[in-house]
């Protein structure tokens, strides 16, 4: 028994609490304590990754000494370690970025935003490490509540968009809970490993089948799977930049991870592929979502709205990985979780920088900004190339694995969806890049501006993410071999 798995969410919960107390007097202390919490959690995640890399070892912790399956178990296997690493890394970067950005976008309320961010990280990492399907529901709602608070603090329309998200999100969470309840009432256990052992003899049971349906739909809403994505664009467009930069990269992905975990480690092998065509239903919806999101992203004039629709499309890549249900495809989907988190985080933070410095959110207004903010826009170009999928940036490799997966499955429609979406993202990102590097005309913000990148606390997180995009691309084989291949190995082949 190792305490490592529980340390990640527990330290985040503790520091969130401390940050609320300390923030009562001074917002700067709320930020410092929150940042320390995220850094501690990230270091623990890194130790966890180093311990479980390569597969073979799995760290388990029984909460309060109650041995599973009676007690709640926290499990750190390669896949969970990978996810906690991604989530806490984005958390650290965004927390470095947040104070200066939030001081402009939600002045006076920052001291409560930092603890909410840490609480969001606690909920998300908890979802990653828990081995108990009901405990997972609680962490899911902790993360959701923290996200509602953060997202609602944005523009004039933000509370309305967040309210609609809350309604649809609690519907998704409720469906998940119905599924978990049905599984418990049928199999008599909540522990994932125990369920995996008991469910094979219950595969014909209608309660188990409807549980799988309820959980898939519920998590589909949470991961913005087409056509259950409609809450997402308004939420991301109206949110404060730092909140969007934290929620957009990690939150939908953790729900996708939970779906993968259920399909791999809770339901018996073949249950969601051979017996019920759930995995391929997720795949087909994802393929539609990829095309739909990319087409609508091309039509947007608002930078954040373009990113939001692009997120709908990019979530589809992860869904395709689920739908392919072969190891190489799943590796592609899982790798895209890291890649897309880095790319979307970088792009949303750049949007925040532009808004902070110039008060601009529309793409046509961004003309000439490449002259004013060379470093920021260099990071933008890297992230845009990665979104399109140009080697050696990260985005290329996850798409490569997914394409190999579609070839192995012989599914040409999905192959075509990936190619079409890459071409469409080339359209909307090159359009933005061209606008940024065009010569400014009279009346443009850039025409009269002093050249200069934003202050270091805004610029450094953007550059770190930009560098991470290239590094994740170059080192993708290491990540795949150490963490993802062991996770996908259970699919066989």
């Amino acid at each position, binding site marked *: 028994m190792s305490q490592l798995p529980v340390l990640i969410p527990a330290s985040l919960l503790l520091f969130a609490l401390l940050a609320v107390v300390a923030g009562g007097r001074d917002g700067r202390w709320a930020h410092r304590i929150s940042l320390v919490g995220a850094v501690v959690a990230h270091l623990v995640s890194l130790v966890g990754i180093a311990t479980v890399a390569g597969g073979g070892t799995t760290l388990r912790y029984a909460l309060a000494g109650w041995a599973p399956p009676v007690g709640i178990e926290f499990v750190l296997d390669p896949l969970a370690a990978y996810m906690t690493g991604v989530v806490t890394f984005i958390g650290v970067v965004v927390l470095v970025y947040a104070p200066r950005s939030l001081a402009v976008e939600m002045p006076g309320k920052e001291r409560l935003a930092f603890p909410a961010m840490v609480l969001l990280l606690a909920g998300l990492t908890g979802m990653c490490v828990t081995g108990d399907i009901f405990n997972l*529901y609680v962490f899911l*709602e902790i993360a959701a509540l923290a996200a509602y608070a953060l997202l609602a603090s944005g523009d004039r329309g933000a509370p*309305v968009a967040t309210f609609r998200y*809350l*309604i649809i999100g609690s*519907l998704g969470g409720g469906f998940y809970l*119905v599924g978990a309840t049905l599984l418990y009432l049928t199999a008599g256990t909540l522990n994932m490993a125990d369920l995996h052992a008991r469910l094979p003899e219950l595969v014909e049971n209608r309660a188990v089948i409807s549980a799988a349906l309820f959980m898939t739909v519920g998590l589909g809403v949470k991961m913005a799977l087409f056509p259950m994505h409609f809450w997402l664009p308004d939420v991301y467009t109206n949110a404060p930049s730092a909140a969007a930069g934290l929620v957009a990269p990690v939150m939908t992905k953790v729900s996708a991870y939970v779906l993968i975990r259920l399909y791999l480690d809770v339901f018996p092998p073949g249950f969601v592929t051979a017996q019920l065509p759930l995995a391929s239903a997720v795949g087909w919806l994802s393929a539609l979502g990829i095309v739909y999101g990319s087409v609508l992203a091309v039509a947007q004039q608002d930078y954040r709205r373009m990113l939001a629709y692009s997120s709908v499309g990019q979530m589809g890549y992860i869904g395709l990985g689920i739908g392919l249900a072969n190891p190489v495809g799943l590796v592609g989907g899982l790798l895209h979780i890291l890649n897309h988190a880095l790319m979307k985080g970088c792009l949303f933070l750049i949007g925040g920088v532009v808004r902070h410095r110039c008060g601009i959110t529309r793409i046509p207004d961004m003309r000439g900004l490449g002259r004013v903010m060379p470093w920021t826009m260099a990071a933008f170009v890297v992230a845009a190339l990665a979104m399109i999928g140009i080697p050696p940036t990260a985005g290329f490799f996850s798409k490569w694995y997914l394409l190999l997966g579609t070839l192995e499955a012989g599914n040409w429609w999905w192959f075509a969806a990936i190619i079409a979406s890459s071409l469409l993202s080339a359209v909307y990102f090159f359009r933005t890049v061209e606008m940024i590097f065009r010569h400014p005309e009279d009346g443009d913000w850039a025409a009269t501006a002093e050249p200069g990148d934003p202050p270091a606390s805004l610029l450094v997180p953007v550059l770190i993410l930009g560098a991470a995009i290239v590094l994740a691309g170059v080192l993708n084989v290491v990540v795949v071999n150490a963490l993802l291949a062991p996770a996908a190995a259970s699919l066989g082949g």
Partner: protein
Amino acid sequence: MTGDLSVARYPYVFIAVLVVIGVWGMVMKRNLLKKVVGMGIFQGAIYLLLVHGAYKAGGAIPIHAAKLGLEPDAYMNPLPHVMVLTAIVVGVAIMGVALSLLVVIHRRFGTLDEARILEMLREQG
């Protein structure tokens, strides 16, 4: 194992009707407050599903009694009750956040009618 759902279907029909009413309210109602009411009904239906799952005909409350001994079938299953308590806490928190969002929305727009709010947002760009 309490796997056989065919013995007593009526509670499940009742719960399913409640779920449908709740989801209908959440999705179809134009008034945002009525959406919250729908959410309450939906959450309540899930709690009932759990409570019903714990029920055993003739079962006692799950506190050890000497005359009933350690026979599990003599007691209700306490675990779903614990889950319901947790789910209620989660539900109350969601409800609280939803209502506080409604307060903010009403202060900004002076109405809780979804169509009118969206219209106002569109007009202002």
